[in-house]
């Protein structure tokens, strides 16, 4: 009797879940919000995009939660950053999902870092250097150049997976590139005063931004990548900043605030919480807003 009731409830739940799913041409599982936003730029109404993480989460430290396994199970395309950023959880999700379409090497698996210009490829792989990534610094999305490269590759992949002529990903890519290049010339003009601005960052996740804008990174609050700030490292940093002062200390919304607050109290250096990715602040609702907001916030301190 109770088994029958349970069975009926279960069947009902399954039906409900099935009926709630929309009828998009593709289901895309994006590991990070920046790649979810790029998919949206290129595919808008054609796909259903799910972002596995948010701007308030440290992507190195996501757990293979049941909800994520369930999402990968039904995905047609997995779009992730790669370069080891998700090595703690993505392989596990893929293996648990029972979804052969999105396994590495298949057309349903896409790593952005494969198409990016990588910086900081380590000469020496040693965990004594902290959480280093063999393929280079994985935080590639804060370079508009990388975004453009990945966009082209991603559009090609979408074309392969969704052959419906109505999709026309080429036209969407062309439109996106046009808007992106217009924005880039605007950013180039506006960000001119930022060249050589001395900054301290929390984690080494801004190297691509630094290179693009010409920011001069003096130090990181973390003693080694991925190792939380220690008091010894911070006091050494304090001495260093007395000699070469920084204009700002940059952190992301997901990073611990205490170390940067402490530095602010000691030296008066301005804290900038940059959005880092989509959803990182109210303006960063898409890729354009992310870069607009980032530049404006930096300019506010520089001027």
């Amino acid at each position, binding site marked *: 009797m109770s088994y029958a009731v349970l069975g009926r409830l279960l069947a009902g*739940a*399954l039906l409900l*879940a*099935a009926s*709630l*799913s929309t009828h998009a041409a593709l289901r895309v599982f994006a590991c990070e919000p920046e790649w979810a936003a790029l998919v949206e730029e290129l595919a808008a109404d054609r796909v259903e995009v799910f972002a596995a*993480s*948010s701007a*308030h*989460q*440290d992507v190195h*430290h*996501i*757990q*293979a*939660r*049941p*909800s994520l*396994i*369930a*999402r990968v*199970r*039904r995905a047609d395309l997995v779009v992730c950053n790669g370069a*080891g950023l998700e*090595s*703690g*959880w993505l*392989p*596990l999700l893929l*293996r*648990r*999902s*029972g*979804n*052969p379409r999105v*396994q590495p*090497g298949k057309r349903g698996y896409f790593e952005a870092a494969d198409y990016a*210009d*990588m*910086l900081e*490829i380590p*000469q020496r792989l040693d*965990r004594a250097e*902290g*959480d280093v990534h063999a*393929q*280079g610094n994985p935080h590639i999305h804060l370079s508009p*150049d990388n975004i453009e490269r990945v966009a082209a590759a991603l559009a090609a992949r979408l074309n392969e997976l969704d052959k419906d002529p109505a999709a026309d990903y080429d036209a969407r890519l062309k439109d996106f590139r046009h808007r992106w290049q217009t924005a880039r010339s605007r950013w180039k003009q506006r960000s001119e005063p930022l060249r050589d601005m001395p900054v301290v960052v929390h984690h080494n996740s801004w190297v691509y931004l630094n290179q693009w804008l010409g920011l001069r990174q003096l130090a990181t609050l973390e003693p080694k990548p*991925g*190792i*939380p700030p220690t008091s010894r490292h911070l006091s050494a940093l304090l001495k260093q900043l007395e000699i070469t002062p920084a204009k700002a200390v940059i952190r992301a919304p*997901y990073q*611990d605030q205490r170390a940067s607050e402490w530095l602010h109290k000691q030296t008066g250096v301005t804290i900038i919480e940059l959005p880092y990715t989509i959803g990182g602040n109210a303006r960063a609702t898409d890729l354009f807003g992310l870069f607009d907001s980032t530049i404006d916030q930096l300019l506010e301190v520089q001027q």
Partner: protein
Amino acid sequence: MCMRTNSAVAVLALCISTPGHCASGDELAEIRRQMEELREAYESQIKALEERLERAEALAEENRSELAREDSKASSRPAGGRGALTVNDFNPAISFVLQGSVNSYSKDPEDYALPGFQLGGEAGLAAEGFTLDETELTASANVDHLFYAETTIGLHDDEEDTEVEVEEAFVDPLALPAGLGGRFGRFYSDVGYLNRFHTHAWDFHDAPLAYRAFLGKQYRDDGMRLTWTAPTDLYLMFGGETLAGRQFPAGSSESVKGDVQTLFAKLGGDVGSSHAWQAGVSALFADVNDREGGGHGHGDDDAGSAFSGDSNLFIADFIWKWAPNGNPRQRNFKFQSEFFYRDEDGDVVFAEDADQALLDYDGEQTGWYAQAVYQFMPRWRLGVRYDWLNPDNDLSIRDLGGFSDPDEVLEESGFGDQGNPERWSAMVDWSPSEFSRLRGQYNRDESTPGKTDNQWSLQYIMSLGAHGAHEF
């Protein structure tokens, strides 16, 4: 304009081909006018063409410079990224986990027992003093386009010798369709929650009492598994295993279909962005042949019991995790609890020296534990755990054999219950990075009711090599 130009060309052509007909002054004026028109029309057309050419040239130039830019970028990509492949690039991912501890007990760990439960597998206590708990070597890789394989070789000390043990060696098919998953080889069963985790991923140094009592610390065996994940946003997974039944809670087995069958279902999801949960129910049905109670803690080697019969175990588990905005880096909380019920029915042979007695045994046993672990700041965690067991065994003597005292036989068999074993534990651990952890733990252990054992341990866990998985 085009039409007019054409007609003018026609008139001109006519005049050239038939000169005799083009003589009158009016006609000449008309022709001059038309030629003038023609010249204007062509000039404007040529101008338009020239402009187009100019534009096309500019575009080509732009493309060329863009290409050059792309080229310079491609060459600026540091060579180390996707450099030359060597034969080593196909090596599997390899990791070592080193675990060791120093332990102190107020009672002799050799006498450790859970009255009412046979201690099998590795259910005993870690050695007193300094000890290497376990050294694990794990290698994993995709075998080819169809299979993934992983093996864990464990090294640990047993008395004087170092034992080498194949802890796990399994193969997962990669290409099963429709949410199906599989595994074959030797592996930790997916019953319950904690069972499938290697000890270095546990939140306490030792196993919950229920795991010692019902699963011999951890149940792994040789066999195969099939799972299916439902295509729903709510995580819903069903699975079953058939296993040889050579490990506790089974005994020895030679049957082809395997003496242990398991079934399990798990569901889970998120609540908002800060909460995640998972719940599961599992069943393990074992056909037990000669299950001997060994365990590391049994000091008296001359006496022992062997159980044969049916053993059916049911487990319900629940895990709830909290992290602000789903970011566990600074603070997080984990609650974990499992409930066990086991029904065993069969015979027990109790042997001491050359004498044997036969007992009827019917056990209905329950047990549970609950634990909470809180990371209150980066790197530091605190945890508490409570364990409780309730053996309710009916034990009677069918044949006393060579023994004279039935009460002594009942007591020494280890199946006699003496109340509820329970234990409180508290731990604190410090993890300087994802790859190292140091832990201190205290247990107030009443595995034998009424006898309190104060247990202290300091433990280290060091992971070398491939990045470990962030399991939920």
